């Protein structure tokens, strides 16, 4: 039964294999791809339903006991992340049916997409540091190819920066993991966590090194999750590929980095939290501020949104840095929220581009007048991102701000609130320019007819709009009825802060269900 834990890895892989074997059979590929996404989502939902009551599931790959083999673990946080990733995978896969060009589709878009999902799910589920590195690489190489697939000049330029900086990050990840083994003699996260909770068994040197190695991990994961001052690759590259690629990247890749940071800085690197978590807070503040200022400066929708990814990452890190049950719950909730909001915004941007042929806010306009539905579909995620109640973003922000105030961390709270107003400012910029403003004279005239014509051609309306509608509806639901998700986030936070179950299930009750007290 616990083999269910493998499904989020194996299903995308099998799907990708089928897609590789069906190379260039575009129609069949689409079908297989959708079936794969749906199965992944169902498996993730099933997994989540097992974990949601508070259980921690673990299984030892190839049946070698931990810490010798590789363990897969699902606690609330990881199962939730897998669920969200699978959901986004499905949504964007549907959306891309309408936006994919035949060339990219013939040259491996579908299999790469699934392999990326596989890497993401693997990184969420693994309980082994080196195995996490491997999943990161899986995710990374497929994102490299997805990013550059098509070979346009801007893609290549962005690709070179993306590839270089991320490979550097991988190198750091790799050597940090090597050093971790060299210091502690184990790679299993639960095993490491257990040892770190018995500091008397460790030598001074080990303790010191376990406060230095986190910095390497912080840099490695920090590059991947686009923290200040390591985020440059993201705004340089995220706006270059087709919009559905950007959407799935923004939904998943940086979030995996944050997931890993949360995981290792709650489970393993707790030797000197005053030192490490203060650094995290400082970085969090700088990340949100520089990110949002970057967004303010932009007039191109994709670039603007890309900078916002950076800014939001700061909030996610803030919850980790504050390190309290509420703040971590805030981070988990924020993660769900921001994944939904950000991808919805990119997807809406894609629709605008499809209608008006540009992402330039100066050239866009008139959408409020011509399509109230598109306006609503943009308005909800945009103002949710800005933290307007009762949309999902508000509760995320509220939890973080409250946690910060309770802990007396006024500086980061001030930053968070100031960034919030700047986020609002840049969201209203898109709203005012692309929606409210009358359309400037240009090649394409946007009116209701034009929109319905564009959307209706080639049965594209349904795949284009369905995912956005569903995501936007979710944002409202999560906002108005926030309690279930918040309760799950709190459960996840409690498990993160007290990983006794996690450690026991992995090390002592392997491959069996464990009920939390």
């Amino acid at each position, binding site marked *: 039964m616990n083999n269910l834990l493998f499904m989020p890895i194996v299903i995308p892989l099998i799907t990708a294999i089928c897609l590789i074997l069906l190379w260039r059979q575009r129609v069949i590929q689409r079908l297989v791809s959708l079936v794969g996404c749906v199965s992944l989502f169902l498996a993730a939902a099933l997994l989540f339903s097992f974990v949601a009551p508070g259980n921690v599931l673990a299984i030892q*790959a190839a049946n*070698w006991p931990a810490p*010798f*083999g590789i363990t897969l673990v699902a606690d609330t946080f990881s199962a939730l992340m897998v669920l969200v990733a699978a959901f986004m995978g499905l949504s964007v896969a549907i959306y891309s049916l309408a936006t994919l060009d035949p060339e*990219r589709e*013939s040259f*491996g878009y579908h*299999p*790469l997409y699934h392999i990326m999902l596989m890497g993401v799910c*693997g990184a969420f589920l693994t309980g082994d540091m080196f*195995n996490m590195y*491997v999943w990161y*690489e*899986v995710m990374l*190489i497929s994102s*490299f*190819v997805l990013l550059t*697939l098509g*070979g346009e000049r801007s893609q290549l330029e962005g690709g070179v920066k993306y590839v*270089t*900086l991320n490979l550097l990050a991988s190198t750091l990840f790799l050597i940090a993991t090597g*050093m971790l*083994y*060299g210091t502690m*003699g184990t790679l299993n996260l639960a095993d490491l966590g257990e040892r770190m909770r018995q500091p008397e068994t460790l030598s001074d*040197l080990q303790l*010191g*090194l376990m406060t*230095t190695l986190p910095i*390497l991990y912080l840099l490695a994961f920090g590059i991947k999750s686009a923290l200040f*001052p390591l985020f*440059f690759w993201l705004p*340089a590259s995220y706006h270059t590929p087709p919009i559905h690629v950007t959407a799935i990247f923004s939904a998943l890749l940086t979030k995996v980095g944050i997931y890993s940071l949360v995981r290792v800085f709650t489970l393993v690197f707790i030797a*000197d939290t005053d*030192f490490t978590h203060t*650094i995290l807070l400082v970085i969090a503040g700088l990340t949100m501020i*520089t990110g949002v*200022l*970057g*967004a*303010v*400066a932009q007039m191109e929708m994709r670039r603007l949104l890309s900078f916002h990814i950076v800014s939001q990452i700061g909030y996610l890190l803030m919850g980790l840095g504050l390190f309290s049950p509420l703040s971590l719950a805030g981070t988990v909730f924020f993660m769900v929220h921001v994944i939904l909001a950000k991808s919805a915004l990119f997807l809406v941007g894609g629709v605008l581009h499809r209608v008006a042929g540009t992402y330039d806010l100066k050239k866009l306009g008139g959408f409020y007048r011509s399509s*109230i539905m598109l306006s609503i579909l943009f308005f909800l995620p945009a*103002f949710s991102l800005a933290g*307007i*109640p*009762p949309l999902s973003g*508000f509760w995320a922000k*509220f939890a973080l701000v*409250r946690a910060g*105030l309770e802990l007396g961390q006024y500086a980061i709270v001030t930053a968070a609130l100031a960034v919030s*107003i700047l986020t*609002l*400012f840049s969201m*209203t910029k898109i709203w*005012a320019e692309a929606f409210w403003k*009358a359309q400037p004279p240009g090649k394409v005239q946007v009116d209701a007819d034009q929109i319905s014509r564009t959307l209706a051609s080639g049965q594209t309306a349904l795949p284009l709009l369905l995912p956005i509608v569903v995501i936007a509806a979710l944002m409202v639901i999560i906002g108005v009825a926030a*309690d279930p998700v*918040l*309760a799950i986030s709190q459960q996840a936070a409690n498990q993160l802060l007290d990983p006794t179950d996690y450690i026991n299930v992995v090390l002592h009750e392997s491959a069996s269900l464990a009920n939390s007290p």
Partner: protein
Amino acid sequence: MREGMLSRLGLSTTQTKGSLAGWIIALLPLSFFVFFCTLIEPVAMGEPIRISYPWIPSLGVELSFLIDGLSLLFALIISGVGTFIIIYAGGYLAGHHQIGHMYTYLILFMISMLGLVLSDNIISLFVFWELTSITSYLLIGFKHEYQDSRYSALQALLVTGAGGLVLLAGLILLGVVGGSWQLSELFGRGEAIQDHELYLPMLILVLIGAFTKSAQFPFHFWLPNAMAAPTPVSAYLHSATMVKAGVFLLARLTPVLGGTSTWFFILTIVGGITMVMGAFLAIFRTDLKSILAYTTINGLGTLVFLLGLGTELAIEAAIVFLMVHSLYKGALFMVAGSVDHETGTRDIRELGGLGKYMPITAVAGGLAALSMMGMPPFLGFVGKEIIYKSAFGVAEHHMFLIMLAVLAMAFVGKVLTGVSAGLVTVSPFLGSKTTTPKNPHEAPISMWLGPVVLSALGLLLGLSVAFSKGLQDMIVAPAMGAVLHEHEVHAKLALWYGTEPETLMVFGLSMLTIVAAIGIYIRGRGTFASISQRVTMPWNAEQGYQFALNGMQSLARWQTRVLQHGYLQGYLLVVAMTLAGFGGLAFFSQVGLVAPVWSPQFPMVHEWLIAGMMLVATVLTIRLDSLLGAIVALGVVGYAVALIFILYAAPDLAITQFSIETLTVILFVLVLYRRQTITHLLEEEIARDSPAKRIRDLLIAGSVGVFITSIMLAITSEPLVSELKHFFAEESVPHGKGHNVVNVILIDFRGLDTMGEITVLGVAAIGVYSLIKLWFARDAENNTS
């Protein structure tokens, strides 16, 4: 031509179409109003009503409502005025293509506003608070295709939104310090909260929130700009409801935060300045709505000022004035809108003699103006008298000088308000007829019903005071009780308080106000406008806003240019510096330098040789001009690594490293060698960077190297204790069924790693293939087409 422009403005001559919908939709606020009316008596007689639903228990947020005198009064105003506004909007925007949006936003706004005033939970109160900001953004920007509408909407949103965030922090502090999110529980904990060390920051945060929303100095500037909104919006949001949310919050929190001297001074000073400034600026305006906007600022200042005084009389005055203001201001805004709608202009210099053409509107405007001036027996008169009474009452609590200041401010404010009342009604409706862009005629019923009812109410309620205690016992006293958090509160309203010296003084001052106002109006009406055109303020708050906004955007552009400059080198440099800096800091603070260990065996000659070879090859890779040479040097490093693997008991690694290295070299040659141009570029490259840059890079790269070396020295200075090593050695043959332990790890113990690894390889190959082939597919397509 004009027709087209007007319909773009939202003004159409087909006035009946669409207004019917307004009548029907107005039934919703009306039914609210009726419902709230039925609550008046139970609330006045008994306990406040509390209704509570769980909303987000994990954060302690309830959807709970507290209906007491204060919230009920606000709810009545919101739903009552709302009813007429909806009807009015139907007439005003008849035929507008987005009138449906207007109704939707107005209803949404009204519900948010009702939620705000009725909330018991401070977080749900905040939720509704933000909703009013966002709906007002949509309403102010209703004429969204106009630059200034968008500008004003954004300004209102940013100012109130920023204030809202500050308020959020304040409310959270309040909840944390007070130990509850429920107002009804916090009311009893006022003293404990005021003794807490966080009281002052909390107070300031909450006040900033309230001041931005209620357009207090220096945040007042957004309100006049918000007049870009269609008139129904201004009438509703900017007179009767949204701007009063801040006042409401202050009143609501008086039992919790009020009563301290900090509270007194901040509120009276800010309120006083706002009051006088608003009244003063109003008389220099020529735009009807603009005059009304500034007098609204005056009204809001008055309310804050009174709440700051905080005495029982002052609270009574605040409650009464709140009603007075909502009634006359709502009516006057709608009158101004009707004038604009029927004549095509709102400039008082272009208006005159409209009374003949728009008699009903003129009467309504006149009644409202009289209430505004405080003419007996209007409710405005009652309100003004209590204000003066409470100002005199200050002497009981504070120094005489303070009383004088308070009285002077109140007086000036009231006189100037009276002047404005003249400006907005006397000038347009009386005098001789002027030519206006449109030929005026009476507005439709949907547009005069509201002003008539509201202004008539101002008269009727004022009269009622003389013979009924209904108003004071059912409305005013319960509201005062809620603000003061006391059960037995008595209000006393009258048109004539008797002949005691103090009341006579108040009455005299009240009359003097009216006389002064009329005098100033008659003397100055023609000159105000021209003065305002000659005198420009050297600096005002709006310029501050603009400065901040521009500054922020310049900062953003500057920062983005500096950080995101596009040069990959620079990015890598930052990463390398972070690595060396952060890593070094952590390492040297936590571990410190560890000396190299040369025991048990000092490296032998061949080991030194290999090490030396690698370093030399590294230098050659850097230095060699020839591409092939650099590739070979790089290969040497790789083969040396394989050599080390052989020396240290890793045959599998050696084989793999050897074959991969060969493959890499082949790949490099295949990819690069044919590109003769690249070899040239390598030579150029050396000339590209200045020596200074190269030294800098060398230093940074070197410090990364030092960091790596020292951390490795530290790790290897102690022996590694690993159970894993022995487990693999023992399990490999019996259960892994293989003698090559490394291979058993790869395909069995850690087979999952290998699965990921081969996936990476597969994708990399597909990537290479697609990158090359897709490009050629494109190329071919371009050539054929």
